[in-house]
C-alpha cells in the first residue's frame, strides 16, 4: 500500500463504514434500485459534466469487465478497496458515527478530512445528475448520503436486523412477492432486547407455503432450505459446501432463455433462491462470501462463451473453491496448529467445530499425546457429536457442560475454538458460549487459539452480540422430564420470554492467536482487516 500515514486513518474508517453498512447480499440489490430511481428523478438538475466524466473514468479503470447495465455489487466492493484512495469514497460519515476503536490519529487530521469532505460533496453532487447510471456508481455511491443531505448520512441497515420496523418488513414482503418466495412468519414473543431480529419456529417450515413439486424454486434448493431449517446441515463449513453443491445442481439444470445472456440471467435466477434460503435460515458469513464468489464468476463469463462451456467452467470454479478454501485450508491450518500442540497437553474445545475436530484428529494421527476436554451447552448439545468423533479416533476425552468450565480450567493448557466468522475489527463471531469460555480462559491465563479459514473473514464490524444475531426456535429450550413439561404453555404467561441465541462475539483481547490458511499461519486477531485488504487486492 502506497498510502502515507496521513490518509491511512480515513482509509480504515472508510472500509469500516463500508463494511458496517454493507450488510447482507440481498439488500444491496434493493438499495441499487432505490438509488437508480432517485437518480433518474434528479436527471433534470444541472450538473458539472466534466467532474462526472472524470469520476466515471476513475471508476471504470479499476473495473476489469465492461460495465453492462447492472454491475453486481460484489465486483465493485472488491474494486473499492484498491480504489479507496482515488475514488470519491464515501467518508462523509462524520467521525462520531464511526464506531471504530479509537486507535487512529483521526483528530489531528481534522483539517485534511474537512477539505476532502468538501471536495467529495461537490463531486457527488455532480455525479448524481448522471442518468441511467451503471451499477458501479450505484454501488460505490451506496454508502453516500442521500442527495438532499450533505452532512449526516443515513445508514442503510440490512433488513434482517430491522424486524421491528414495519416499513422494512413491508419492503421485504414486497420483494419476496416479486420473487414468488413465501414469507416466513415470526413466531412467539421476542425478548425486547432482540425484538429487531427474526425468530422462526421449526414447526412452521417454509415448505408449507411452497407448492409440492416446486416449480419456482429448484428442488435442490428446497431440499437445502429444509435441511438448514431443520438443523440437518449445521456448521459454517457444512452449510457452505451444501450450498455450493445445490448451486452446482442449479447450474447443471439451467438453460439460457432466448435473448438472454447467461452471465446476467443466471445471477438473476440465483437471487430468489438466495432469498428462499435466507428465509429458511439466515445466511452465514461463509455462505455470503461463497455467494459473492459465484456471482462474480458468473458475471465474468464472456458473452461469446457457449452455454455448455460456461456451465462446465462454473462447475469447475465451484469445485476449485471448495477444494482451496475448505479442504486444503483445513490441511494447512492443521499443519500450523499441530506445531502448537505438544505432548502432555490438555486441550479444551467447545461445541462441535469441524475444523477443530479435524485438527485434533490430525494431531492424534501424528502421534501427539494429548487429551481433550469437550465443553457443551444446551439446547444444541453439539459437544456430543464432537465427543463421538474424537473418541472414535481414540482420543481420550472428558465431557463437561459449560457451567463447569471454571472448575475444569485449572488443568487446561490450551483452548482451541472454532469460528463462524472473523469480523473486520478483530472480533470473533462464534457459537453462543464461546466468549464465555474465552473470558474464563483469560482469567486463568490459558492461551486461546481460534482456528478459522480465510473465506470466513467478513467485512462486517460488531462489538456486541445484540446488534446482529440469530434467534433460534424458542421451543428448543423446553425440556420434558418424567413426563412433565413445565414450560409447555410459556406463551400464555405475558411476562415470560424464551430466548435461544445462536451466536456471540468475542473481543480480540481474549484471543491470543488466530490460526488460518493462505500461508499466513498464525496471526493476531487484529490483523484481520489487513488480510481482507490483501485478499481483495489479489482478487
Amino acid at each position: 500500500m502506497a498510502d502515507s500515514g496521513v490518509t491511512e486513518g480515513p482509509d480504515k474508517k472508510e472500509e469500516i463504514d463500508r463494511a458496517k453498512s454493507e450488510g447482507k447480499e440481498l439488500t444491496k440489490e434493493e438499495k441499487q434500485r432505490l438509488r437508480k430511481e432517485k437518480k433518474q428523478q434528479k436527471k433534470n438538475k444541472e450538473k458539472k459534466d466534466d467532474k462526472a466524466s472524470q469520476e466515471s473514468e476513475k471508476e471504470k479503470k479499476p473495473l476489469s469487465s465492461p460495465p453492462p447495465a447492472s454491475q453486481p455489487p460484489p465486483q465493485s466492493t472488491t474494486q473499492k478497496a484498491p480504489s479507496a484512495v482515488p475514488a470519491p469514497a464515501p467518508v462523509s460519515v462524520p467521525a462520531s458515527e464511526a464506531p471504530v476503536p479509537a486507535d487512529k490519529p483521526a483528530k489531528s487530521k481534522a483539517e485534511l478530512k474537512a477539505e476532502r469532505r468538501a471536495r467529495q460533496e461537490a463531486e457527488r453532487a455532480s455525479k448524481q445528475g448522471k442518468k441511467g447510471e451503471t451499477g458501479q456508481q450505484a454501488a460505490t455511491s451506496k454508502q453516500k448520503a442521500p442527495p438532499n443531505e450533505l452532512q449526516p448520512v443515513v445508514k442503510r441497515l440490512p433488513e434482517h436486523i430491522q424486524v421491528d420496523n414495519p416499513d422494512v418488513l413491508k419492503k421485504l414482503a414486497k420483494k419476496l412477492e416479486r420473487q414468488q418466495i413465501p414469507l416466513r412468519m415470526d413466531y412467539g414473543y421476542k425478548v425486547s432486547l432482540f425484538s429487531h431480529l427474526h425468530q422462526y419456529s421449526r414447526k412452521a417450515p417454509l415448505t408449507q407455503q411452497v407448492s409440492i413439486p416446486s416449480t419456482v424454486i429448484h428442488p435442490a434448493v428446497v431440499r437445502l432450505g429444509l435441511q438448514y431449517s431443520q438443523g440437518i446441515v449445521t456448521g459454517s463449513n457444512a452449510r457452505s459446501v451444501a450450498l455450493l453443491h445445490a448451486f452446482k445442481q442449479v447450474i447443471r439444470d439451467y438453460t439460457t432463455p432466448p435473448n438472454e445472456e447467461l452471465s446476467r440471467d443466471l445471477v438473476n435466477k440465483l437471487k430468489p433462491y438466495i432469498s428462499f434460503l435466507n428465509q429458511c435460515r439466515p445466511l452465514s458469513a461463509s455462505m455470503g462470501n461463497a455467494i459473492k464468489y459465484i456471482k462474480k464468476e458468473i458475471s465474468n463469463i464472456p458473452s461469446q462463451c457457449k452455454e455448455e462451456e460456461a456451465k462446465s467452467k462454473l462447475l469447475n470454479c465451484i469445485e476449485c473453491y471448495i477444494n482451496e478454501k475448505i479442504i486444503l485450508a483445513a490441511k494447512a491450518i492443521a499443519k500450523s496448529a499441530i506445531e502448537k500442540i505438544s505432548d502432555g497437553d490438555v486441550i479444551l474445545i467447545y461445541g462441535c467445530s469441524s475444523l477443530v475436530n479435524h485438527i485434533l484428529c490430525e494431531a492424534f494421527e501424528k502421534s501427539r499425546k494429548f487429551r481433550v476436554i469437550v465443553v457443551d451447552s444446551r439446547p444444541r448439545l453439539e459437544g456430543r457429536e464432537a465427543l463421538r468423533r474424537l473418541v472414535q479416533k481414540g482420543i481420550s476425552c472428558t465431557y463437561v457442560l459449560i457451567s463447569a468450565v471454571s472448575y475444569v480450567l485449572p488443568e487446561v493448557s490450551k483452548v482451541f475454538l472454532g469460528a463462524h466468522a472473523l469480523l473486520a475489527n478483530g472480533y470473533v463471531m462464534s457459537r453462543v458460549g464461546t466468549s464465555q469460555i474465552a473470558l474464563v480462559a483469560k482469567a486463568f491465563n490459558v492461551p486461546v487459539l481460534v482456528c478459522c479459514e480465510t473465506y470466513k473473514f467478513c467485512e462486517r464490524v460488531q462489538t456486541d452480540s445484540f446488534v446482529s444475531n440469530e434467534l433460534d426456535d424458542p421451543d428448543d429450550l423446553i425440556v420434558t422430564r418424567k413426563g412433565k413439561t413445565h414450560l409447555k404453555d410459556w406463551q400464555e404467561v405475558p411476562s415470560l420470554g424464551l430466548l435461544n441465541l445462536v451466536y456471540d462475539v468475542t473481543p480480540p483481547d481474549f484471543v491470543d492467536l488466530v490460526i488460518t490458511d493462505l500461508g499466513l499461519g498464525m496471526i493476531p486477531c487484529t490483523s484481520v482487516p489487513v488480510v481482507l485488504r490483501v485478499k481483495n487486492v489479489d482478487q
Partner: protein
Amino acid sequence: MELQAVLMAAGGGSRMTDLTYNTPKPMLPVGNKPLMWYPLNLLERVGFEEVIVITTKEVQKMMSTDPKMKVDVKMKLDVVCIQEDGDMGTADALRHIQQKIKTDILVMSCDLITDVALHEVVDLFRAHNATLAMLMSKAHEFTETVPGQKGKKKTAEQRDFVGVDQSGKRLLFMANEADLEDGLSVRKSIMRKHPRMHIKTGLVDAHLYCLKKAVVDFLTENKSISSIRGELVPYLVRKQFSKTTDSPKMKDDAEDQTQKKNDSSTNHELLISSRDEPLLQLAQERSCWNDHHGDMSEAYHGGKLRCYVHIMDQGLCYRVNTLAAFIEANRLAPKLFEEPAVHPSAVISERCQMGSDSIIGALCQVADKTSIKRSTIGNSTTVKEKVKVTNSIIMHGVTIEEGCNIQGSVICSNAVIGRGADLKYCLVGNGQRIEPEAERTNEVIVGTDQLMEI
C-alpha cells in the same frame, strides 16, 4: 421437476363387491363426488399440475363423462389404461409406466380421502434424502352399523405391525400378522442401531408413498415384486438394515461405490448415488448433526437407504375399501369442503325437513312432507312424498316412491324403491327394484347374476 404424481385407480374394490359390481370403485360417489376426485383434489391443492392416472378403460370412459371430473379437475391427467383382469399389482403397474417416469414419484391410491398436510410427508422425503416416505394414520373405529353385516364385526386378524424409532419418523419394521407364523422376530442389526423401537398396531396405511426414481428402476429389473404395499415396502424397510447397504467407513467409499455398481445387477441392489456424492458426503461429514445419540456411528448409521413414515394423529384419513369405510366416508367427507349442502339445481319443496348435515345432489326432486336426516342423496334422484330417509346413502338416479322409510341403508344407482317400503340397514344393489310394502332389515339385495356361483 421434483415429483411426479401417480394415481392408482385400477383396483377392483374386492372388499366391497356389492357396491362395485356395477360401478368401478374409483367412480363410486362419496358425498356426491366420485371417489377418485378426492385424491386428485388433494394433489391439485398442493400444487401438482400433472398426474399420471393408471386405470381401466371403463373408468376412463366414465371419467370423461362425469361433470365433476371435467369441471373441477384442472390438472392435466395422463390416463394409462391397463387390463381389467386384476392380475396387475400396483408394482406391476409402475413397471408398466416406467418410461414415463423421469424423476421421484408420489404414488397414491384412488380410495384415499384425507386432509393431511402433504408437505409433512414430502418434507421427510426431501430433508433426509429418503428412499421411501409414506403416510399412516391412527385407525378410527367405525361406529355406523354396516348393512348386511351379521353379528359383531370381527376384530382384525390381519393386523399390521409397524415399528418406528424414538422420534416416530423413521420406519424400522413392517410386517403383517399373516406373515408372522410363530411370533414377531426383530433382527439384531435393527436392535443394535435403534435400541428403542415403538411397535404400533392400530395404524391405517394410507397408501401414499414417495419413492425415489431408483426404486422404479429397481422394479423393472426385479420382476418378482408385484404389489407396492404387500411386497415392495416391507422389502425396502428390511433392506435398510441388511449388511450390503451398510458402509460404516466413509473413507473407502470410492472403492465401495464402484464395487457396488458392479454388484448392482447381480444383487438387485438399490443404488442411490448422485453425481456429486463426494460433495454431499463432505457436507454431511462437516455438519455436526446426528439423527441418533449414544453410539459411535455417524448420522443414519451410514446407511444410504432410509424409510420414513409420517403418522397422522389428527385429521381425516380414510381408505374407502370396505363398506364400513364407505359409509363413514360419506358421513365425513363433505365436511372437508365448504360446499353448499344443497345443490343449486335441486328442487326441494318447502315442506321438506332437511337436516343440516345432509347433502342433496344436482337435479334432485324432493317432494313434500319428506324428512331427510344425516343422509346423502345423489344426483338426479327423485324422492316422493312422505318419505323418511335417515342415516342413509342414496346414489344417483334412484327413485323412492311415496311413504318409504329408509334407515341406515345404502341404495345404489338407478334403484327403485316401491311405495311404502321399509328398509333398515340394507344394501340395495344397482338397478334393483324393491317391491312395494317390502320390509327388509339387515339384508343385501343384489341381482341374481351377482351372486356367487357355488
